[in-house]
């Protein structure tokens, strides 16, 4: 995918539309500040045993309906979620073109630009505080250490929406390249010590979602295929390729006040041609399946006060759920214990719309295992298996 050409073209089109069109440009956004305290390991900065304020976010979105068939939308995002510096990013920049519709309401749309990936129920809106009540999305499926890899792609997409008597059906298909500019992607896929550059080969994402709005059912299946080439800067590590196939099945049932959600994910990871040293010393497996799932209950006491509870679990390699084989692999070199290869999490949370614009959230999470812990702020050889995390966040919506 010509990501270097597509994105500037869309940006220019957007800039021209803003300067020439007589439409009122719609601008809205959110600002968030979080306060975190943890015991065991760090999350949102150096929070272990002390209060951390390294959880700040500002998002500004724009939408312009150029003509009945064409709209442009963009969002800029500034985020600081660790003791590292804040990062500014173009979250999405998309031109939507309405290709087809019929009298029954069935539609086909074409999308061009930087497009959020449709994975599960929450990936596309993971950073939007008012789109869900959670401080952290279920880390089993929406693991933050892979956020940059999974968030969006520069490319082209097509969506098809069909209305039937009971169910709405939606299919989204998009092809392009994930944004690999962040060093976090390389660290997440190859560990901190393996230096080099990742480049993208055409990848794609497809999602099918069915929804029965009258009875509150939502069922979905998402698939991502991403392929990357690695150009090594290290002697002994050869240029190789990484292939990821990620499947997520989603189910949700909403009653008036109660919402039950479950998602199940399988991720096939394959590393090719990195050489004998990589295979023998860097990763315990070069062809394996990660497995993840969660169960979640949300309850609305009122429309303004809501609570949730969740249990989720993530196994880096489902053929080695205990992590014992990986521990044995590293015993002669880095001495990494087995709890680096799974995470089991229990979460309780509250969300309260304080006023029209202010939203408060509180979350407690107990994490057994280090597989989903952020890389930044946690040393590669930390030994604590259990993390207790308390987060309070205030969000202003405008």
């Amino acid at each position, binding site marked *: 995918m010509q990501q270097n050409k597509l994105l500037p073209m869309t940006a220019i089109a957007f800039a021209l539309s803003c300067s020439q069109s007589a439409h009122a440009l719609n601008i809205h956004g959110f600002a968030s500040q979080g306060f975190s305290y943890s015991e065991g390991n760090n999350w949102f900065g150096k929070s272990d045993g002390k209060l951390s304020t390294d959880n700040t976010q500002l998002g500004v979105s724009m939408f312009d*309906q150029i003509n009945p068939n064409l709209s442009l939308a963009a*969002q800029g995002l500034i985020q600081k979620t660790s003791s590292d510096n804040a990062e500014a990013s173009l979250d999405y920049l998309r031109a939507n073109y309405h290709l087809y519709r019929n009298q029954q309401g069935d*539609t086909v749309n074409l999308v061009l630009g930087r497009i959020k990936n449709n994975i599960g129920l929450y990936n596309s809106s993971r950073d939007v505080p008012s789109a869900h009540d959670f401080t952290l999305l279920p880390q089993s499926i929406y693991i933050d250490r892979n956020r940059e890899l999974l968030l969006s792609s520069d490319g082209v997409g097509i969506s098809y929406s069909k*209305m039937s008597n009971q169910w709405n059906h939606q299919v989204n298909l998009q092809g392009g390249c994930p944004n690999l500019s962040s060093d976090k992607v390389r660290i997440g896929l190859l560990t901190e010590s393996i230096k080099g550059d990742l480049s993208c080969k055409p990848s794609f994402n497809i999602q099918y979602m069915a929804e029965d709005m*009258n009875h509150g059912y939502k069922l979905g299946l998402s698939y991502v295929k991403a392929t990357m080439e690695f150009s090594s800067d290290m002697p002994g590590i050869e240029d190789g390729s990484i292939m990821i196939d990620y499947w997520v099945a989603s189910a949700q049932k909403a009653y*008036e006040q109660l919402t039950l959600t479950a998602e199940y994910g399988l991720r096939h990871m394959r590393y090719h041609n990195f050489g004998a040293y990589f295979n023998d010393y860097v990763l315990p497996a070069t062809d394996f399946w990660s497995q993840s799932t969660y169960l979640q209950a949300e309850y*609305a006491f009122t429309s303004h006060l809501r609570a949730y509870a969740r249990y989720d679990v993530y196994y880096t390699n489902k053929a080695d759920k205990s992590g014992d084989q990986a521990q044995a692999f590293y015993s002669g070199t880095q001495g990494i214990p087995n709890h680096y290869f799974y995470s089991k999490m229990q979460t309780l949370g509250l969300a309260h*719309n304080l006023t029209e614009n202010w939203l408060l959230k509180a979350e407690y999470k107990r994490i057994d295992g280090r597989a989903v812990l952020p890389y930044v702020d946690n040393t590669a050889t930390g030994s604590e298996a259990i993390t207790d995390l308390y987060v309070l966040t205030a969000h202003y919506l405008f």
Partner: protein
Amino acid sequence: MRLRLFSLALLMGLLGSIAQAQTIIVNAETDVTQLDNRTIKSLFFQRVRYWPNGIPVTIVALERTTPLHEEFSKNILKVLPFRLESTWSKLSFTGVAKPVVRVNSVSEMLSIVSSTPGAIGYIDEETKTSEPNIVFISRGES
């Protein structure tokens, strides 16, 4: 005695529903005069984003804490308002759908719907008056 209590409850329920009744309004350029409940829900949840004549749908809503907005959400859409808000946030902050236009009063609602092609909103039944360029929607059952 039971019959009296039942009648009283029924009467109170009817009075309540009359006092809280809401009416869907659309801009006349939508060419729509009747909508069934399922379509109304699909429109306000932005699953349907175009009118049959091709004009994009613009949702106009009162601020989230307004009693009329809460009553509309519960009585017409049969959901608590937070479900609407989270859906609108998800779709607008991902660039998928046009952001909802928020208004502070019914008079502003009438003004915006009247002047915006493709707009759909709601008002209190009591304030239903003849307005230029606005169509009051009659609701079907399905």
